[in-house]
């Protein structure tokens, strides 16, 4: 039964990984940008919540009401200025710039908050859970994060396939020149896509900050997990990303059940096995994002 519990916890953890993966996948899908500062942006969101909750007396669970708009703006402005400038120079420059950003963000946080661990205080919610039986219990928080991940994925899917802006994003992703010919301002579209990507990063960062403690140097984990989920699931498939996240989560939870120090290693090994055996991912999708 402890193994069943590990699998259940792993599936729920997969929701968090899928949430992390959304933003990475969306940026790559629309503008071929690999954002190496992805994880550090999530940590920034978590630190923002740490600052906001005591000053505004907002319940921590509602901190996204402030963090999300900030990240929407940050994403749009960041894309229109820094990312687009780098993009004009080529994919190579984008990698250098986002990696530079990652190091800068991490070290600025280190100067501001020292290397100590922080966490977003969510009160009694952290310990509340549904007891299925003696061995299996599902924490409200894990379940909530999983549900949020599914809602975000559904929303993204709906947005990309049905809304005008979603269609424009897919058009620009498919063929930038042709999209421009029919009058789409690709820079604005990129900006909107980046804003949405950053917003999902903020959500993931907040979930991460409630789920576990974090420090300025915690950005590496989220980036790697997001990337592993995307690759395991198959590039360019939103639902593949969710399945990839779940596979990664189960691998980590089962590994951690064997030996707590095995958790991250087990996830990495599953990822390496996937690129060795099936580099196109388990589900190969065609959707732009």
């Amino acid at each position: 039964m402890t193994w069943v519990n590990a699998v259940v916890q792993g599936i729920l953890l997969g929701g968090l990984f899928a949430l992390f993966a959304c933003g990475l996948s969306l940026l790559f899908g629309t503008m071929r940008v690999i954002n190496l500062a992805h994880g550090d942006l999530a940590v920034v969101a978590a630190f923002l919540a740490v600052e906001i909750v005591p000053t505004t007396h907002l319940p921590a669970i509602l901190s996204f009401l402030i963090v999300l708009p900030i990240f929407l703006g940050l994403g749009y402005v960041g894309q229109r200025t820094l990312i687009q400038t780098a993009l004009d120079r080529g994919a190579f420059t984008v990698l250098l710039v986002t990696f530079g950003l990652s190091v800068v963000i991490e070290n600025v946080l280190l100067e501001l908050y020292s290397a100590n661990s922080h966490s977003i205080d969510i009160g009694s919610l952290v310990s509340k859970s549904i007891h299925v039986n003696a061995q299996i219990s599902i924490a409200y928080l894990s379940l909530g994060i999983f549900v949020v991940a599914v809602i975000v994925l559904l929303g993204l899917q709906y947005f990309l396939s049905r809304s005008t802006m979603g269609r424009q994003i897919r058009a620009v992703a498919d063929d930038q020149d042709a999209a421009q010919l029919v009058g789409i301002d690709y820079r604005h579209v990129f900006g909107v896509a980046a804003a949405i990507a950053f917003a999902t990063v903020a959500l993931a960062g907040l979930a991460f900050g409630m789920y576990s403690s974090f420090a300025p140097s915690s950005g590496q984990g989220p980036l790697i997990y997001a990337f592993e989920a995307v690759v395991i699931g198959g590039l360019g498939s939103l639902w593949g990303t969710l399945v990839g996240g779940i596979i990664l989560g189960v691998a980590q939870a089962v590994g951690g059940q064997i030996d707590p120090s095995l958790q991250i290693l087990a996830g990495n090994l599953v990822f390496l096995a996937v690129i060795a055996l099936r580099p196109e991912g388990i589900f190969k999708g065609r959707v732009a994002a």
Partner: protein
Amino acid sequence: MSVAPERTIEEAASAHVRVTRSRRPVRWSIAVVVVAIVALAALPYVVYTGTTDTLVNFFILLTMASMWNLLAGYAGLVSVGQQAFIGLGAYIVLLLGLHSVNPFAAVPLAAVGCGILALPISLLVMRLRGGYFAIATWVVADTCEQLVARSQTLGGGTGAGVAGFQGVDPTLLSANTYWVALAVTVVALASVYLVLRSRLGLVLTAVRDNEIGARSLGTRVTRAKRIVYLVAGAGCGAAGALLAVSQRFVQPGSVFSVQWSAEMIFVTVIGGIGTIEGPIVGAAVFFILQQTLSQYGAWYLIILGVVAIAVAIWTPRGLWGLVSRRVHVRLFPVGYWLWPRSGRNDARTTAPERSGDPASGEVPG
């Protein structure tokens, strides 16, 4: 192609132009380099150990940066996981020390070991491209750290001291470390230079300018990139081994830290990616900043990160690019100059700035 005998570029072009490696006779470059090496080798007799110990860190940085430059600047492989080889190199020294191998003798063995380990790793990570390749190398480095930290004989997560330094005079030890570091750096730079002057260097230049075009001409692009990955693995392994020898202690969290990648990338980008001289200039700038800002914690990394971002966007050829655009100096000529056989002997009117000279081309995209 199969009938015609292989001709060198010099022979092929000899009918119309004279081909040289550089504008000035190469022996001046060689003289400068030899004098620099001799002067550096004599330093332990002249200065205190504090200075040479500092220079060891400079040599480690320069070796790492030159390797990253070879990877990213010439083979287009943007790795953010070269710390895998730094760590593995350091741990090979530690492991060999447990079997009473002299740590200094272990440095070349660590380089060879990392070169060998780079082969299976390249088979995995080179299945992915661009940014995905970059993060995959990071995952590999993370995995190596996790695996090594599980070994209790290697000190687990807390690390262990390198054996074999007991009873050696500290001054002599410091001087030996310095000479080994200097030797590793010279060998690393010479290897990069020789790789780029060889046929492989021509292949890499062709790939950088137009990969699809190079492939369609039958160039074995993947093989060329893999060789570069192995060389860079061996070089970073040697740098990691130097780290273990100079610090005499190996800790997984520190030797496998992504900070090494940050340093080698910033050094190369600021100095000038895609030139051999770039990392040397960058390492000097980085080192001076690091030394002057050392009491302000992580600020040197923040400043260097911002500078590297600015350089990557606005002057992609870096500081060396700014210098060499004005004065035509090549310490390490890897390209060709064409001189017309008739008429004025002025290369500037005929020498193709970009196509003939890998050191002056663009950064790969």
